[in-house]
């Protein structure tokens, strides 16, 4: 059987979707995380509980939502609650299994910047949107998945600003800071998957996307990237996964990106 044609972005989205366990409660951001979570719910994880920071618990949207506060989320949710409640009663006590984050920059310990790039805080070269819900998602979800395209501008030796904590300065730092969840268990990219080294918590290349090489991944990362001896090759998207993903994408075209 010949494999279907697919793009690196499709592999990344499918890889992210596969990382979600059926029945898990997932705190979803808009964009790639939302696409992946909705794909998972339509494939192997029909009982995935989608939680959006606008206060929708258990949303079951029939199309991709256009924002975290899309009306389709409120219409299909088990319950719609206030924003203080979603953060205080649901996220903070650690009731949510998986948090899904993206970012502008990530470092070797999975810390994320979505605040400023270049210059200093008061006079940045580029002002980004800021923290939103990310710091507490990173701190409180039982585990975190990060989804980002890999390139040297994004995967940097040193962040310009720490918006959300991954493993801080290394093993034991999360515990010392009093953060509750395990931290980022996977960084899913267009070239492959990074996972924290069990001894040091440093992100290490463990899987490659079909067609990608370790050298290619090293060139796309701004620090000397470690890799396991023989990174596994990710299973390419199945025909069924691709069909559902492409169908999902058509539900958003013409709307907001």
């Amino acid at each position, binding site marked *: 059987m010949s494999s279907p044609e697919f793009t690196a972005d499709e592999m990344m989205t499918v890889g992210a979707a596969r990382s979600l366990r059926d029945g898990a409660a997932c705190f979803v951001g808009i964009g790639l995380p939302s696409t992946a979570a909705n794909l998972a719910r339509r494939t192997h994880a029909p009982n995935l509980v989608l939680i959006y920071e606008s206060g929708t618990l258990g949303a079951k949207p029939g199309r991709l939502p256009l924002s975290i506060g899309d*009306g389709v989320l409120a219409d299909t949710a088990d319950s719609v609650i206030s924003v203080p409640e979603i953060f205080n009663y649901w996220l903070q006590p650690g009731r949510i299994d998986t948090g899904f984050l993206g970012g502008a920059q990530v470092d070797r310990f999975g810390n994320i910047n979505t605040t400023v790039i270049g210059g200093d805080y008061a006079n940045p070269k580029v002002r980004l949107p800021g923290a939103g819900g990310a710091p507490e998602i990173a*701190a409180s979800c039982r585990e975190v998945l990060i989804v980002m395209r890999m390139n040297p501008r994004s995967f940097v030796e040193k962040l310009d*600003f720490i918006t959300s904590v991954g493993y801080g300065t290394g093993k034991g730092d999360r515990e010392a800071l009093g953060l509750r969840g395990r931290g980022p268990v996977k960084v899913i990219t267009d070239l492959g998957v990074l996972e924290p080294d069990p001894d040091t918590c440093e992100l290490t290349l463990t899987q490659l996307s079909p067609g990608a090489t370790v050298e290619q991944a090293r060139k796309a990362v701004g620090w000397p990237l470690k890799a396991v001896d023989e990174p596994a090759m990710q299973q390419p998207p199945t025909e069924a996964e691709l069909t559902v993903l492409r169908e999902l994408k058509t539900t958003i075209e013409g709307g907001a990106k």
Partner: protein
Amino acid sequence: MARILQLDEAIAELVHDGDTVALEGFTHLIPVAAGHEIIRQRRKDLTLIRMTPDIVYDQLIGAGCARKLIFSWGGNPGVGSLHRFRDAIQNSWPVSLEIEEHSHAGMANRYAAGASGLPFAVLRGYAGTDLPEQTDTIKTIECPFTGQRLAAVPAVNPDVGIIHAQQADRAGNVQMWGITGVQKETVLASARSLVTVEEIVDELTPRPGAVVLPQWVVTAVAAVPGGAAPSYAQGYYERDNAYYQQWDPIGRDREQFENWLETEVFGAERSAR
């Protein structure tokens, strides 16, 4: 009893230069028309508060109404950056903009403390991030019972809280439903409040899960049909996604923005948006 006013009367009476003003709405029910009326009345030196400043805050900042912004995520949802906000921070255009930056959890708790009549709120947050170093309103405290280290943030108590809702009755009782964000907390935390509504009805129909703000906590209500567009009002109209995308090139360019301001806000009796 809340007074039923015209939007322009309400803004003229309730919002003064130098005030601290929160126009809240979490993607849904954003009080856009009220924001445009503030621009039209050329208010300045405002401290603007909002968890998710988006297009209408970009417009208020670009029009020079704001001196300071207290926020937790500033962007054009689903599209990208706010360019008037960026220009004010990076280049002080048209005036410099001071910022006080939090996370969503921090801001939600600041509103909750404000609504509760408490001086501050406690949350498990900010540890290990660079935010406390840049923001004076984040401190670490020790729990007096367990000794745990936690974050403390002060209450926000705006001079004026402005929200948009679906309905009010003639006495000024307000009802809103769908995603209601921090809007209840905003009204309860504020010294004065204005609720713009899609319509004023004789009697509110009870709805499961709806938020009702009784007339005695609301200062004024103004009927402004379509007052949340380009955001949406559940049960009334959908979000105008194209508008959010079209804003990007307008917001990017000072001249295009000024043309927009002249024609769509100052030149319009009431803005289309």
